[in-house]
């Protein structure tokens, strides 16, 4: 991952600041940086979102395609994830450099969506054993400024919220052969229920305290961080430790409590922003990439 080198004195300064609940940019330990979310930024996707969290810049596109359901789950659709680490983010990603990080993110995303409650996969089924919708979720890292996982999960949730899948009907004729009919009205589509889609909260242990939304500099001071996926009700669905350091069981419990609390605020803020954007509809001037 994009990392920065710091001198010993700079690290000491950051660690002492966190101990006093005043980070370098003036935030407290449980504050996020100012985040911008915009959906529907790529016109040739079923749903897309762009999230800017400080310097971290993420673009997510969701494309719905028709496919055959998996054998073990004949009445469900499924999601496919792909992460592309653009060399624009950091020269390290050039060639195959970003592959390792990309796979790590993809695996994490599969893990947090692998349960039945995150998203209603049954609604993606068109016709059991034969046809279902496959949602290809493509994540593009445009810039890395720390706290990648949180930003990606926010962007994925926003893109899924924005996703519109065309309505189809299955017609069956006398001989039993089935035909799929697409609705004529392009606005006639189904939307996904994203209420239960979890977001990732990364808590980095720095010194003897933990912080949310660490910047690159803070990540350089942290030996271990805990990645929690939290739903809007504050339920923990998945947990993972990153980094080479170890964590005390007691501090893991503390971090879980903070994660749940922060997760709830995050979901409320995200839901509010997405609803606000939708209510503004076409009256809002799109910003996109050139605004």
């Amino acid at each position, binding site marked *: 991952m994009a990392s920065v080198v710091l*001198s010993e004195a*700079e690290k000491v300064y950051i660690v*002492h600041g966190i101990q006093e609940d*005043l980070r370098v940019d*003036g935030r407290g330990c449980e504050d*996020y940086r100012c985040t911008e979310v915009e959906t529907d930024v790529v016109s040739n996707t079923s749903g897309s979102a762009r999230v800017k969290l400080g310097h971290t810049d993420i673009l997510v596109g969701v494309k719905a395609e028709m496919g055959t359901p998996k054998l073990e789950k004949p009445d469900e659709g499924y999601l496919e994830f792909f992460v592309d680490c653009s060399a624009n983010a950091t020269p390290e990603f050039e060639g195959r450099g970003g592959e390792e990080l990309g796979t790590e993110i993809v695996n994490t995303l599969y893990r947090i969506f692998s349960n039945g409650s995150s998203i209603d996969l049954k609604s993606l089924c068109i016709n059991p054993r034969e046809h279902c919708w496959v949602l290809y979720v493509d994540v593009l890292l445009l810039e890395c400024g720390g706290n990648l996982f949180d930003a990606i999960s926010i962007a994925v949730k926003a893109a899924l919220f924005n996703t519109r899948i065309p309505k189809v009907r299955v017609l069956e004729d006398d001989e039993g052969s089935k035909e799929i009919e697409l609705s004529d009205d392009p606005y006639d589509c189904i939307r996904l229920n994203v209420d239960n889609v979890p977001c990732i909260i990364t808590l980095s242990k720095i010194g003897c305290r933990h912080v949310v939304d660490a910047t690159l500099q803070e990540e350089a001071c942290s030996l271990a961080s805990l990645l929690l996926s939290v739903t809007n009700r504050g339920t923990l669905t998945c947990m993972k430790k990153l980094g080479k350091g170890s964590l005390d069981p007691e501090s893991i419990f503390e971090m879980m409590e903070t994660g749940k609390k922060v997760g709830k605020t995050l979901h409320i803020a995200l839901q509010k922003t997405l609803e606000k954007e939708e209510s503004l509809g076409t009256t809002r001037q799109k910003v996109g990439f050139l605004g």
Partner: protein
Amino acid sequence: MAAMELRLPVPRKVVSQGLARGSDKHLVAPGDTITTDTGYMRGHGTYMGDEKLVASVAGAVERVNKLICVKALKTRYNGEVGDIVVGRITEVQQKRWKVETNARLDSVLLLSSMNLPGGELRRRSAEDELAMRDYLQEGDLISAEVQAVFSDGAVSLHTRSLKYGKLGQGVLVQVSPSLVKRQKTHFHDLPCGASVILGNNGFIWIYPTPEQKDEEAGGFVTNLEPVPLHDREVISRLRNCILALVAQKLMLYDTSILYCYEASLPHQIKDILKPEVMQEIVLETRHRLLELEG
């Protein structure tokens, strides 16, 4: 209490034009024709195309008699002798350190062009060479002066003064080198309680004002005692103010930073980075700077 600020992006607005004098600057984008007159000389940032002088970078046109240059807003650092820079050590080599200074090539700091601890002037022995990593290691920050610029643009630094040397606790902010105003001194002890080094290369170091000046003579013993909370608040506020000034493309020098700091006082430190607050305090700073100019 956890704070989470999620918002929709707002389109960039054109900042109030005509507020500053000299806003009639000739601005160009790459490919713009600067002049069709052939009587001019081609300077940096320009090229000749079909008898026309064309800009190759985005920035402001500067004319010195017959010479036309374009000074880019966003650029790497082009070293000049006598500049004060802040840099980070990237490599320890034979008798030299490689220093990252935001230039196109890594700068060098020779073992012979620095004051060693103890301050005595002597020949550098083999022991000194072996102990180089004890003085400065990878990741360390230094302040230095440009001693020479090589033909390929690489910069050679020196720290042969008690002013320069290894930097201790503080915060580094990286900005575009063209936003740092050239001044007589780049070391400032601000009256708000912190000090800044405005490196000509766009690296800005904010640190608590040292209590006794003569103690830094050694320069190699860094003080790792916790910085008091009050100093931290000032440093964080200064950092955010500098970022606000940079976002609105205002030149950085002691007065502009101090005015911005004073304008930001009604706001919480973390709120300074919100776009609307940034705009507000920078506008106030600009007004005050204009008043000062008269």
